[in-house]
């Protein structure tokens, strides 16, 4: 091994380094700039520069960096773009947020950027050390962000709850990692995989380790039984932060779970070769039945999420439970264990990104005007802010999976994957859940358009938010009728490189 390879690799992570430079700049710039909104523009610029560097560097494919710490492949490329775009959207989202207006400054954008940096590393980690560090980086920034409005009691409660849950989950996960290290003597994914394939370890031992490691993943993905933090945190945290946690943080959880399960926990490394056929069926290593386990977790997650969402009175809480349910739908792709299942998860994440941030954006717009997210206050909003309300209706029906919107196509591929694997019980429960979810999404739409209130004052939408509504809303509609480019994209980018 070349001892100096870590120094040479520095130039290859230009996008991540850009983010580091900007984080440092925000911390110092806080002392220099009086107008705090300037940091928002700087952060947008930072993400765009990182994106440009990423696209330039992408000419070099599939490389392992820093002595097997992180890997750059198509999969990590996909998620890096995902997180950088999430950063841009969340920056615009935060510009006109009444909750954080007073405190908006360098720290806020530095924390968001640090979280995104951690997520990018999470998507590329091929070593448990790096995995854990990047996960902690995301968690730490998220705790701070959810407690960002210091004078708000609920925000403080959210941060503390998140911290306690997060510390417990990562403690359990690190215990699992420690046991795996004790068993194999390494933290490196590819070496662990080689040892697991040899099949000398008893299945029960491996399953125990897997359950322990899942604790950390499940927490990030907000799956049952590690979902309890989500409603309280989303409700207490400032709305842009809630949207950020619901989409980017969850996406990072899925990225890391996908990489770990599909490089270490399956036979061979089929995803590192050329494109597979749709029905390619992955075989778990040692014939461990983790797909079945994830199927059961999927059923529990979507059922708990949807049933609890039914009688929520706060829209943010409702969206929190709905995001739990959506994590359950996405987990069906894991349980199916075929190639459609794999890229359907990526496709669904793209659609979920658009529609979920959009729904939170509407909550923000309403909150800016009337200072609450109570569902009864949504009465008559269809007249008071027609454009935003129509967009919200699109996002809601897409979340419910009504054709011809993006959410329907996303669900279609997930169910196709499940049916291809003949997991009929899972498909039936999933479809029943989708029907159930329509009730509470439609309830919000009904409040907005069919019921009247004596309030007639217009709800203003700021320019940044109109821009976001357009760039989030139109793709949701377009993806419902013309989705094949995005589908081809996620197919090409569902490629995991393991040396």
């Amino acid at each position, binding site marked *: 091994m070349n001892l100096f390879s870590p120094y040479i690799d520095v130039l290859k992570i230009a996008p991540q380094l850009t983010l580091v430079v900007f984080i440092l700049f925000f911390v110092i710039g806080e002392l220099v700039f009086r107008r705090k909104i300037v940091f928002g523009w700087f952060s947008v610029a930072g993400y765009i520069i990182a994106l440009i560097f990423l696209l330039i560097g992408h000419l070099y494919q599939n490389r392992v960096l*820093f002595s097997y710490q992180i890997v750059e492949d198509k999969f990590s490329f996909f998620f890096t773009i995902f997180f950088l775009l999430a950063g841009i959207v969340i920056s615009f989202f935060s510009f006109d947020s009444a909750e954080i207006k007073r405190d908006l400054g360098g720290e806020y954008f*530095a924390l968001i950027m*640090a979280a995104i940096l951690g997520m990018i590393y999470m998507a590329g980690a091929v070593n448990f050390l790096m995995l854990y*560090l990047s996960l902690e980086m995301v968690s*730490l920034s998220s705790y701070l962000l959810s407690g960002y409005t210091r004078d708000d009691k609920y925000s403080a409660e959210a941060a503390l709850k998140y911290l306690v849950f997060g510390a417990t989950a990562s403690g359990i996960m690190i215990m699992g990692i420690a*046991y795996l290290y004790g068993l194999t*003597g390494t933290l490196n994914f590819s070496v662990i995989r080689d040892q697991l394939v040899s099949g000398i370890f008893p299945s029960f*031992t491996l399953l*125990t380790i897997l359950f322990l490691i899942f604790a950390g993943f499940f927490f990030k993905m907000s799956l049952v039984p590690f979902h309890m933090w989500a409603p309280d945190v989303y409700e207490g945290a400032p709305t842009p932060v809630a949207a950020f946690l619901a989409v980017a943080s969850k996406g990072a959880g899925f990225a890391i779970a996908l990489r770990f399960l599909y490089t270490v926990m399956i036979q061979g490394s089929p995803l590192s070769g050329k494109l597979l056929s749709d029905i390619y069926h992955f075989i778990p290593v040692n014939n461990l039945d983790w797909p079945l386990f994830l199927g059961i977790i999927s059923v529990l997650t979507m059922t708990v999420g949807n049933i609890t969402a039914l009688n929520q009175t706060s829209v943010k809480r409702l969206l929190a439970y709905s995001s739990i349910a959506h994590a359950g739908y996405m987990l069906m792709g894991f349980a199916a264990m075929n190639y459609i299942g794999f890229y359907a998860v990526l496709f669904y994440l793209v659609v979920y990104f658009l529609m979920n941030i959009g729904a939170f954006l509407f909550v923000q717009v309403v909150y800016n005007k009337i200072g609450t997210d109570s569902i009864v206050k949504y009465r008559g909003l269809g007249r008071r802010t027609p454009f935003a309300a129509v967009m919200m209706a699109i996002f809601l029906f897409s979340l419910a999976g009504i054709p011809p919107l993006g959410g329907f196509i996303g669900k279609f591929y997930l169910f196709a994957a499940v049916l291809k694997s003949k997991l009929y019980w899972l498909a039936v429960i999933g479809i029943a859940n989708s029907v159930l979810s329509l009730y509470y999404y439609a309830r919000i739409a009904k409040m907005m358009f069919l019921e009247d209130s004596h309030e007639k004052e217009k709800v203003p939408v700021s320019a940044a938010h109109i821009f976001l509504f357009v760039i989030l809303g139109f793709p949701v509609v377009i993806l419902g009728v013309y989705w094949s480019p995005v589908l081809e994209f996620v197919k090409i980018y569902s490629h995991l490189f393991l040396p």
Partner: protein
Amino acid sequence: MLATMLIYIFGALAIFSGLMMILYRNPIHSALWFGLVLFSLAGIYALMQAHFLALIQILVYVGAITVLIVYVIALLNFDQRDLVGKVTILKGIAVIVAAILFIELLFYVGGLYVKGIAPPPEFGKAANIGLATLTRYLFPFEVISILLLVAVVGGVYIAKKD
């Protein structure tokens, strides 16, 4: 031979003080027992050739963290009568989950006997750790610095008054 015996002694001490930590009602006592847990772990590390880790364990955990915990308990200044636990359904579930986990881990230990991995010679030497940190694990080392920066920025932000 002596090393093996000492490992058992430190292990027993760790378990005993861990039990004491959760059984004591007074949080200050619990914190002190927790310090003893960490100390016995340091002893185990030292016996497993990880001298550097053992020293750091004593410096950081026994020295700093335990003192910090004691300070926090002293500053909180709460009523001890609030700490009297009641038996609830949730606690019952917690006990069941913990029992399942314990049994699972017993199986895990059973699995370990299949193939134990001996650490390479000179495993935990300070020189090796230094070399590894600045060559092979340089990158995670640098990532930790950003992690700490985030913690510092966040800590200052949360603590500062307007």
